[in-house]
């Protein structure tokens, strides 16, 4: 499993994918957080990283599908999944290796944002006037959210040998699971009756709950369930309904 993990990581950084993903993520966040006057922390006058945790999911929503789209589609296209399948390695191991490799790349992109924390910490008046607990919670939330998106992306990639299809499907599913349930709950047939349940199906509800610094076991279980469901579906796709 480690060998496949390392191979995936290598392929991110031996092609441009890894660098481009990290660069786009940081440039986009940097612009929004420090340059664009409407959102900039410098104009905002509050010592918080709220912008980061509002914007990052949106960036992930198209960036993570762009990373994961090749995972299985490319292997289907080149036939290399059959190559792996003749080796002493199980489908579970392949899926998990790819999951952790993609997640590692996303986390790698996230590490430099710790600098933002330090900056805001220093800029606070008085110095260090910052809700560290909420920020730690938000980072945990963001990592779990990224893991969900990676699982969704891998599943989408396991559906098609066409990378564009995989990307579009993944981006749509990420959007749908992140946002759609909140707005669907506002429909008249749900509103006032089951809207709270509908909202709880969406990722954003749990993400925001963790972001408040309240790491609740129910939210963690929710995220883990989503991740494992999609990884399991992905495994089923590559074993049973393989694309020829």
């Amino acid at each position, binding site marked *: 499993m*480690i*060998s*496949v993990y*390392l*191979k995936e990581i*290598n*392929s991110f950084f*031996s*092609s441009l994918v890894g660098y481009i993903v990290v660069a786009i993520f940081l440039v986009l966040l940097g612009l929004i957080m420090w340059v664009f006057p409407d959102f900039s922390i410098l104009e905002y006058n509050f010592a918080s990283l709220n912008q980061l945790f509002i914007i990052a999911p949106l960036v992930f929503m198209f960036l993570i599908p762009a990373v994961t789209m090749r995972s299985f589609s490319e292997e289907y296209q*080149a*036939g*290399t999944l*059959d*190559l*792996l*399948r*003749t*080796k*002493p*390695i*199980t489908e579970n191991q392949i899926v998990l290796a790819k999951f952790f490799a993609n997640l590692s790349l996303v986390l790698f992109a996230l590490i430099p944002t710790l600098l933002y924390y330090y900056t805001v910490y220093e800029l606070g008046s008085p110095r260090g006037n910052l809700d560290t607990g909420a920020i730690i919670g938000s980072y945990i939330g963001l990592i779990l959210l990224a893991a969900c998106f990676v699982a969704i992306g891998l599943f989408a990639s396991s559906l098609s040998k066409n990378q564009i299809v995989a990307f579009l499907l993944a981006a749509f599913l990420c959007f749908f699971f992140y946002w759609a349930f909140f707005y669907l709950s506002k429909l008249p047939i749900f509103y006032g009756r089951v809207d709270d349940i509908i909202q709880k199906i969406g990722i954003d509800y749990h993400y925001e709950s963790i972001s408040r610094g309240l790491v609740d076991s129910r939210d963690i279980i929710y995220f883990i369930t989503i991740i494992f469901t999609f990884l399991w579906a992905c495994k089923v796709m590559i074993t049973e309904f393989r694309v020829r």
Partner: protein
Amino acid sequence: MSIKVSGLTKYFGKQKAVNNVSFEIKKGEIVGFLGPNGAGKTTTMKMLTGILEASEGQAEILGLDFQNQKAEIKKQVGYLAEANPLYTDMYIEEFLSFVANVHKIENKKEAVQLAIERTGLIPERNKKIHQLSKGFRQRVGLAQAIIHDPQVLILDEPVSGLDPNQLIDIRALIKELSQSKTIVFSTHILQEVQALCDRVLIINKGELVADDQIENITRTALEKYRMQIETKAAIKLDALKTAVSGLKVIDKKHQKYILSWNGNISKREEIFQFLVAQGHVIYEMKMEQNTVEDVFQKLTQ
């Protein structure tokens, strides 16, 4: 017994791709797996490597069965797929050490080195796979199949699409590997079978239609003999046909004749006696070998 297959059947939806195929391959044998395109060769091979699961029937490799000992089988089998899928943006050594890692080979560097040497990849070793010619890619495919020193090699069309020089190289390589391993390889190039293997399995429309030594197959499948004769003067063919029953004249050009008959090879003696009695001067009298092509066509019609 290296490979033992009994009643192997594979459905794709309602279509039967492989139908009730049984055969056994002994240790150290090199067996050609022959059949027209779409006959089920690749499907059978994929079932022998664990890529596909059989719908019905059993396959055993080295006495291990696929239900319970799949992981063990994968350690003992090397597979070169038809399209030879490789991670083309990797360097040769990088790719081979990845494969060695997946196999958890202890002496990784040595294994990679040995595979590169055996497959003659040394002059290209520092290239990326996508920079290689088809012949060298095929060698990389073979290198990844033998890196873990498997006892059984399954090669799906190892020589298709190669130029004649590459073909001879790869053929020699397979021959060399066959000294220490059991090899099954598929092809629709018949010369390949004649050049390489002891035994042929012919498969058509998913069914095994022949399983024997090459000479036996060519003889028994046709029971047909052809003879080429050249004489100084023209032969009276009608007289010949009455003297030797069951003869057919296939071709006639000047004083060159091609005769054929079914059944008994001893008719060549009767033909000779007839020609001598007629006082013919015989320049040439030669039995033509039945080619594998003839057999193949007959069996797969």
